[in-house]
């Protein structure tokens, strides 16, 4: 059979096909999947309830109101929800290597990263986190005093997508290690989810070292803090460089480019060393 390159449209259609099959898999275990979703939702809502209880006693920290804090928090949930919806495969990559699913992708006439990304969708996590994000957003977007004009809407979308790419890159770094049969999933979760917890509050709350970490090492500040500050202009922003407000997509693209190079390197090593995980 003659091999013709797939067009963008064909790839998109194929992705939809994969999503449909994933949905079918999810519905195959409706009962179980419903409770998984509920568990994710409840777990995250509890963390918000705790935040609420603490904040009602303090009223405001460094000039941040409760609704402003929740608005900031909504960035984390919405971008994570989109990340999971689009890139579950990157989160589950080590498992694909481990079970040999990756080898199966390598005998298909399609790009490897494309297949990793398309082949899986975790609808439970998408809906669980998405629901929390939507609730937080809907209950705050009006009251925090944002003029939702065209420019702000465009900024909002770009910041959200930038946040998605930043989180994707963070997960992908860890995936790359799987190419060398090194499992970093637990380390990744430790770093990722704890940083994310920090990023649920304005970073100005923290000592300098934590701030630096959230800007330079695990740049969650660009996922939630700076995009929120763009809209809210709280006084605590003054200690940071103003340009940071616009950097989210840039940080995302730079990170992804670097990680992608690392990925290519890993793939090369994988095909030369095989895989000793199974």
């Amino acid at each position, binding site marked *: 059979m003659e091999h013709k390159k797939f067009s963008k449209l064909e790839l998109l259609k*194929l992705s939809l096909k994969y999503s449909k099959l994933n949905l079918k898999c999810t519905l195959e275990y409706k009962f179980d999947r419903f409770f998984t979703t509920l568990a994710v939702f409840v777990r995250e809502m509890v963390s918000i309830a705790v935040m609420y209880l603490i904040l009602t006693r303090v009223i405001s920290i460094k000039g941040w109101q409760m609704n402003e804090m929740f608005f900031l928090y909504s960035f984390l949930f919405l971008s994570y929800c989109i990340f999971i919806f689009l890139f579950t495969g990157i989160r589950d990559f080590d498992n694909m290597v481990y079970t*040999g699913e990756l*080898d*199966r992708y390598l005998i298909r006439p399609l790009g490897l990263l494309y297949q990793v990304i398309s082949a899986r969708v975790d609808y439970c996590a998408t809906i669980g986190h998405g629901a929390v994000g939507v609730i937080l957003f809907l209950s705050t977007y009006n009251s925090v005093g944002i003029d939702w004009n065209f420019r702000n809407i465009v900024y909002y979308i770009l910041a959200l997508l930038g946040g998605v790419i930043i989180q994707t890159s963070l997960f992908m770094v860890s995936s790359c290690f799987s190419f060398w049969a090194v499992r970093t999933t637990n380390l990744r979760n430790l770093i990722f989810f704890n940083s994310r917890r920090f990023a649920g509050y304005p970073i100005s709350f923290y000592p300098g070292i934590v701030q630096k970490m959230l800007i330079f090492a695990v740049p969650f500040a660009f996922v939630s803090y700076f995009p929120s500050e763009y809209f809210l202009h709280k006084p605590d922003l003054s200690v940071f460089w103003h340009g940071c407000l616009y950097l989210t997509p840039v940080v995302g693209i730079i990170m992804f480019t670097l990680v992608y190079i690392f990925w290519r390197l890993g793939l090369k090593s994988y*095909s*030369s060393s095989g895989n000793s995980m199974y």
Partner: protein
Amino acid sequence: MSLIEVRDLTKDYRLNVKKRGLLGAVQSLLVPEYKLKRAVDNINFSIEKGEMVGFIGPNGAGKSTTVKMLTGILSPTSGSIMMGGLSPHKDRKKNASRIGAVFGQRTQLWWDLPVADTYDLLRYIYRIPEKKFEQNMEMFNDLLGIQEFMSQPVRQLSLGQRMRADIAAALLHDPEIVFFDEPTIGLDVVAKEKIREFIKKINAEKNTTMLFTTHDMLDIEKTCKRMIIIDQGTIIYNGTVEQIKERYGRSRTLVAEFAQKLDRIDLPAGVELIDQKDNKKYLKFNRDEIQVSGLIAELTSKYNILDLTVTEPEVEAIIREIYEGGIDFDKGISGDSKKSLSEQYCVPC
């Protein structure tokens, strides 16, 4: 030029050498030390279009490693593979649309979904025209009976059903070349036979080129004319199944049933008593040195014999003997001489 040309193909795996103790752990983190394991050692062979070749060898011989290189999953450490002008690894995507692969140990079907869903997805992935897809589905159903479990989730299928479904999945896009890595593993006699028939039929009808690894010699005898035997990464035989029988299957066993139980018998030189059961004795000899008729005449003149049968060795037995080192190949027939496994240590800078 043949469809598949393998030249001086070598594959080294790199194994991490883990050191003991805390100091060792720190050391292997800072200066990782590797041990090279040569899984495939400088092999050469070619396969013509439409040929069906058996690829056998004991566990760990390097069969799967070779198949992984042929399918483009692994890159060779050195040497080259050419498949109709393409390199399976470097031109992976291009090459992938004309090959198919079945890894018996693992499924390529979606575990939680009916088989039909995987086929539907494959139709998109390989861009199989509607008409061809339907023709193939019909043909596979006739030969493999996949319709009966089409709507069952894969996890509920028996091993035999799953294997049939997997084979159909690999052949759906009419690949020019198909690699089977143990497609009959764990199957019962009937299921094996069905799969052999199917493979033969596809080969005959579509002129598909096939390479077939297995541990069941019957698979090879029933489907392939040629076989390649690999051991410790080197090819030790590459020729027809007939030839191996001809050359190495010269021993015969005469089973003689005597009228009474004999404690000992006189045998001519070159005849060996290998087993006995009740009144039966199993006598092994080389058919080039001893004539059966002569041996029978001698025995019947001395003893009272009720029954006689002569058996040829099965290919299975010959192969077993080869694996165990009982048969030494002369270079004339197999081309490659046996090399010892090389293992080297190296520390990257």
